[in-house]
């Protein structure tokens, strides 16, 4: 398949791997931010191509994993209402809330529907005027523009039985939080290529300078990831720290202006709680005043709730790269993909699920 197989080329992989071995003289810790990259690293066992000195730390870039427990409980509460159709991407359906999950609510008669696009949820609202259709809007900067666009569309078409339960999160504040956290050992970042496709990479430049870390915009195929690692190692060995774009076939400095415009129109930046990590300032998106009629939390007057995670789950430390999934005492025992204690074991992009699937 064109534009994919070129980046899964064995000879090219070997060549870049050789270059990394020749360049690397010291131990380095590099974090890949995005869950899609973690998945690729496991799926192709890319660590086989790296010197032992390089440790890859898996970052918090899985939106399903960082959606706070309270919000999942809110979605579950909404899904149980008779006049509500709760729509969601498939990954969210199995994520455990504090007592249940959306698939269980569905089994008990809740109208929960999996959609592939928020525009499909708008369509469901249009076809079910007697129901309130809520879209559980989870995601990073990659999914936010489409979710914003669904609200713009609903408004344009005068569809008022559509709303978002918004749990959007942003990457740069998370990088900042990780680097500012005491004892952080991350020396370089592979930034998430698709987030940068939307946002461009200007906002990473001050981060690289402030914390003196190389940030390399990286794609998702084996050749992309190894190229990102090579660029990081080169910078680290030379003692420089700058933003470098190794995914220039889709990422430009400015990003996708139209997508950013719909995001800015519909959303406003807020402090947001990340599951397992805590509140990160200015790291989330909520519906702006102008679109508050489409905000499910306001429409349904959902109360603020505080919930405790399972004490066995170390998802927070895993998401910050402080521990590997296999260091969790519950890994593969009390916590498996069939019976997950924490979200990283559910989502296909979660570090725990990736380890379980490819490495246990």
């Amino acid at each position, binding site marked *: 398949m064109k534009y994919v197989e070129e980046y899964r080329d064995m000879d090219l992989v070997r060549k870049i791997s050789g270059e990394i071995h020749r360049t690397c003289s010291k131990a380095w810790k590099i974090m890949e931010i995005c869950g899609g990259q973690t998945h690729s690293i496991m799926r192709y066992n890319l660590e086989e191509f790296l010197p032992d000195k390089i440790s890859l730390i898996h970052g918090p870039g899985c939106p399903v994993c960082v959606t706070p427990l309270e919000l999942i409980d809110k979605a579950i509460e909404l899904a149980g209402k008779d006049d509500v159709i709760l729509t969601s991407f498939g990954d969210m359906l199995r994520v455990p809330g504090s007592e249940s999950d959306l698939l269980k609510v569905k089994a008990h008669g809740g109208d929960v529907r999996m959609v592939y696009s928020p525009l*499909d949820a708008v369509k469901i609202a249009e076809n079910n005027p007697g129901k309130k259709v809520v879209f559980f809007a989870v995601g990073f900067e990659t999914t936010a523009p489409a979710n914003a666009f669904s609200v713009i569309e609903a408004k344009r078409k005068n569809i008022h039985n559509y709303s978002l339960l918004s749990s959007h999160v942003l990457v740069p504040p998370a990088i900042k939080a990780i680097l500012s956290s005491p004892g952080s050992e991350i020396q370089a970042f592979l930034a998430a290529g698709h987030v940068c496709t939307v946002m461009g990479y200007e906002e990473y430049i001050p981060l690289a300078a402030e914390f003196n870390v190389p940030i390399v915009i990286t794609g998702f195929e084996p050749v992309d990831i190894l190229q990102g690692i090579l660029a990081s190692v080169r910078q680290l060995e030379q003692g420089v720290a700058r933003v470098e774009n190794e995914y220039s076939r889709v990422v430009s400095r400015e990003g996708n202006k139209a997508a950013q415009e719909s995001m800015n129109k519909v959303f406003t930046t807020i402090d947001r709680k990340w599951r397992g990590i805590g509140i990160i300032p200015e790291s989330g998106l909520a519906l702006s005043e102008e679109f508050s009629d489409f905000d499910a939390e306001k429409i349904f007057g959902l109360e603020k709730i505080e919930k405790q995670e399972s004490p066995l789950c170390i998802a927070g430390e895993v998401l910050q790269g402080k521990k590997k999934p296999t260091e969790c005492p519950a890994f593969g025992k009390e916590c498996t993909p069939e019976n997950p204690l924490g979200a990283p074991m559910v989502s296909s992009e979660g570090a725990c699920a990736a380890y379980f699937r490819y490495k246990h």
Partner: protein
Amino acid sequence: MDLSCPVPITNYDKITLAHGGGGSLSNQLIEKMFLKELGNSYLEEGHDGAIFDLPGKLAMSTDSFVVNPIFFPGGDIGKLAVHGTVNDVACCGALPKFLTLALILEEGFPMEELWLIIQSIGQAARDAGVQIITGDTKVVEKGKGDKIFINTSGIGYVPEGRDISPSNCRPGDIILINGNIADHGVAIMSSREGLEFETSIESDTQALNKLVESVFSVTKDIHVLRDPTRGGLSSSLNEIAKASNTGIEIYEKQLPLSEEVKGACEILGLDPLYIANEGKLLVFVPEEHADNVLKAMKQLPEGKNSCIIGRVDNKSPGMVRMKTSIGSSRIVDMISGEQLPRIC
């Protein structure tokens, strides 16, 4: 599908509760539809069951079919109900001979669609060389079912000298498959409401009993046969590795996969190893027979794309490994639950 014959029942255009009541409308269904299309001496007997002879060691299997949508690119629920059970019996090393057919219909189900499905069942049974010898029809109230559910059971006999079991898998065995994987699952997905993408991908649903016989025409020394349906290739391979406590290695570069399925999987974030097939045969054969078995399989239309995808060893007993396209090695695990698309 072409409507080859007009619907033989014209006084009702939809199934009513009375069609499952055992009275005159039930009889009308049996006589005008089922006997007309599926008729044979066993059914025509009009008995409560069928009495038959089969030689030697017997093999039996049962399966229920609830596919949605009931008509999909490359097939329909009727065809699937015949192929699914025929293939399970054939993968025991048996020659499938007879099927039972039980229908659960939802009140209001269009007679025309039932007729299409019955014709499809008839055609598939004739093609596979099996007879439907007893059956049952029930009707449930509207909303208590979903159009049509089908159960088929099948029976066949195992010729002397054949010994097929997942626990027979041995280090050194070569693993063959008869063509592209994941076609069925992707065809079904592409026709589901809410996931609108246009492809020309068709389900691979087909009977495998003739292909199985072509394998045995080379040697009786076949260790394992399996049709990897739900859960895809990875689930079948994992089950075999566990049952025999051997290690299985497959080669990513040699896995047959159409460009369209590859593309659909990339876009939807699905792994073809976990996607259902309905007409694929895995053959585990000792190395010395592998080339000849492969040649024999390729002679038949359902085996023309047969190839080697892996081998059995004694490294990592009970586990499946994959040599990836870039030369590394990783575990291929069983799937847990339904495969759900990625969200970013």
